[in-house]
């Protein structure tokens, strides 16, 4: 009974956040300066009548509350509207870009999380060792470096070794293996940049939370039982120390969908980050709203998952 109530409470909270995001998304981008109809017709001779017709077509001539009402009701039906710039349904545009983003940001995040947590554990377990000092120093430096600069630096340093623009070459053979190899080849530089930049976050969180646990009495108990040092670490220290990192990791997984605006722009990766950047220059209201709803939705869902998982990993927390 209680469990059910708590679970519904969590779900209700998540749903409420999503509604807030949808409302905010609508009004937020209406404040962005710029007239979408003017930028849609830029470079072409237009009359006032044509502009008015465009406004009517996208419903921009109606009062704000009517626009909001129709936006919100179609959102509930899963319809995100039509993009001004692409002249296609927003949902289609986003879906098309979702794949590349998941590939790039997803892979990089998984690698960065894995590497960061592992490095953090190693560094904390041998605190002040050369390994600890080196990893902390290097990852902090990379964390501090501007992403676009690191990306450009990598491009220059690797020369012609890896492609630096786009996701695939036009002249690659259409069979799966060559396509996959080509995409993988294009993936190297942008994902390397992303991993290098965000890895420090996980590493430092893991390191400091393991350091907090290092003197915990239950580790002495484990040693006294005769456990090997690496078992003490794996079975006892890490399961406790990893808890604070869980929330961070899942928030990041949620943000995967947002793409990586800087990296995607630098490497012209056709993902959601680049799409966001393009949509802002419109401003393409419906596309921006759609992107915001999708990104925020992913974060909210991931956060919910993190809370549920937390309840499984830490028996002291009653989530559901």
């Amino acid at each position, binding site marked *: 009974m209680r469990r059910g109530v708590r679970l519904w409470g969590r779900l209700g909270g998540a749903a409420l956040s999503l509604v807030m995001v949808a409302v905010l998304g609508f009004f937020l981008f209406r404040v962005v300066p710029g007239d979408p109809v003017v930028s849609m017709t830029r470079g072409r001779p237009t009359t006032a009548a044509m502009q008015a017709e465009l406004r009517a077509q996208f419903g921009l001539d109606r009062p704000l509350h009517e626009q909001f009402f129709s936006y919100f009701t179609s959102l509930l039906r899963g319809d995100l509207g039509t993009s001004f710039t692409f002249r296609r349904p927003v949902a289609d545009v986003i879906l098309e870009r979702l794949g590349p983003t998941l590939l790039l940001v997803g892979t990089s995040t998984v690698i960065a999380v894995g590497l960061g947590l592992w490095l953090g554990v190693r560094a904390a377990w041998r605190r002040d060792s050369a390994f600890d000092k080196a990893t902390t120093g290097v990852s902090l430096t990379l964390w501090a470096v501007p992403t676009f600069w690191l990306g450009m630096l990598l491009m220059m340093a690797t020369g012609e070794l890896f492609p630096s623009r786009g996701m695939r070459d036009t002249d690659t053979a259409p069979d799966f293996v060559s396509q996959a190899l080509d995409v993988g080849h294009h993936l190297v530089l942008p994902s390397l940049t992303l991993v290098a930049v965000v890895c420090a976050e996980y590493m430092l969180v893991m390191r400091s939370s393991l350091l907090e646990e290092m003197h*915990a*009495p*239950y580790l*002495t*108990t*484990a*040693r*006294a*039982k*005769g*456990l*090997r040092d690496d078992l003490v670490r794996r*079975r*006892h220290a890490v*399961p*406790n120390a990893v*808890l604070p990192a869980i929330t961070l990791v899942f928030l990041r997984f949620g943000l995967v969908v947002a793409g990586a605006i800087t990296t995607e722009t630098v490497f012209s990766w056709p993902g959601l980050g680049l799409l966001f950047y393009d949509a802002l220059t419109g401003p393409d209201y419906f596309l921006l709203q759609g992107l915001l709803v999708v990104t925020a939705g992913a974060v909210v869902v991931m956060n919910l998952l993190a809370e549920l998982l937390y309840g499984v*990993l*830490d*028996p*002291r927390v009653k989530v559901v």
Partner: protein
Amino acid sequence: MLELRNLSVHYGHKRVVGDVNLTLAPGQTLGLAGESGSGKSTVAMSVLRLLPRTARVEGEILLDGDDVRTMSWGRLRAVRWASASIVFQGAMHSLNPVRRVGDQIAEPMRLHGTPGSVRELLEQVELSAQKARAYPHELSGGQRQRVMIAMALACGPRLVIADEPTTALDVVVQAQVLSVLTRLVAEQDLGLLMISHDLSVLAQTCDELAVMHRGELVERGATREVIANPRHPHTAALTAAFPVIGDPAHRWAEQAPQPEPLLRVRDLVVDYGRTRAVDGVDLTVGHGEIVALVGQSGSGKTTLARTIMGLRKPSSGRVIFDGAPVPVKGAALKAFRRQVQLVLQDPASALNPRHTVRDAVAEGLRVHGIRGDEESLVSAAVERAELRPAELYLDSLPHELSGGQQQRVVIAGALVLQPRLLVADEPVASLDASVRGEIVALLLKLRHELGLASLIITHDLGLAWQIADRVAVMHQGKIVEQGSVEQVLLNPTHDYTRALLRAVPQV
């Protein structure tokens, strides 16, 4: 079975243990007594080579004839828990919080290939087999300590080291845990090395007693002999520090005349959800009177104190302070709180580690916006708490002070607001025997000089005997008995009071 020869432990240049010689035969029980910092826990940890890397260990530690110091890591791991195991203090922190206790008990058995079942081990310590599926936080303090004992016996060791196994448990639970431990040690003919700061606990469980002081073994002999005729002055100080209920020499409070009531609690009820934590309590504290509220953990005494201080709203009933009901909000509540100050059990966690003594004491003044010369008010309060001269302490951080000094800082922080009632929750429970006496004397002096009334919450009946004018015994949310100290502690009328008194270990 265990033999320590000239054991010395240094941290850098600091010697924490010096030249300790000790032997323990199978089936023998030895108590190792001493205050915090005496090196007794260091000795225990050195037996299984569990000291941190920075420790330099000299001498010989022979476990069944083998020197632990020179063993290979592989041999050492095989010896750990199988030859000797440890019941650690504070089972809450010594058990892994995210693993089921059954797994934790089974872990060393799998590791050392010992046959046996977790169910049987739990039955030995009088816990039901279902408890194996519980996590540490789901168990009570006494149950957790039994789990520790079951775990220590999992691999059939011949030596068990118990490091303060019952500290932080209340008397009744302490008596239960001690009886389980002594029964198992006798049944399985184990050697027991028991470490405690509490001589009465050791007196009850051990045949022999060794006393440590500043890293050295100062006395060793049969328990009765050592306690009855201590040869070393430190041993004498230790035995004298624990009050004996009924002994007039340990009764420090002078008789106070029947005072006017300062605080009156009338038919107070406090509910937590569906649980009734405080159930119809009537209690009075007079001007300048010291009242001890005794009871086991979970009896509702802390909830009662929080409600008296206006930190919790009562479900029904009234709290009347100085003739007026305690205000429930706003400036009036703030003004009331100034008059009632709290002293907590563990000064190390009650003080902010990054605040100097000056900040810690002055905080109350700042919160209440009291004008005036902050510096002189703070100095006066610090000196009242007998940290003299105040200038020596004002810029210290808590970790630079001893436990007793820290508790004085907490008391100074209360005194600076010139309160009329002090609510003290186990004010001496985390302090050493010698310091404990000083803090008790300080509380009595404050009453004498300032007319400060105190409500002392404790499970320590000895403390009540030492300091209080009246005692109220709390059980399951109700006050089952109250009256003058002599009346309640010497001629108890309620069964629960008798049970509490029976559980107090006797020296």
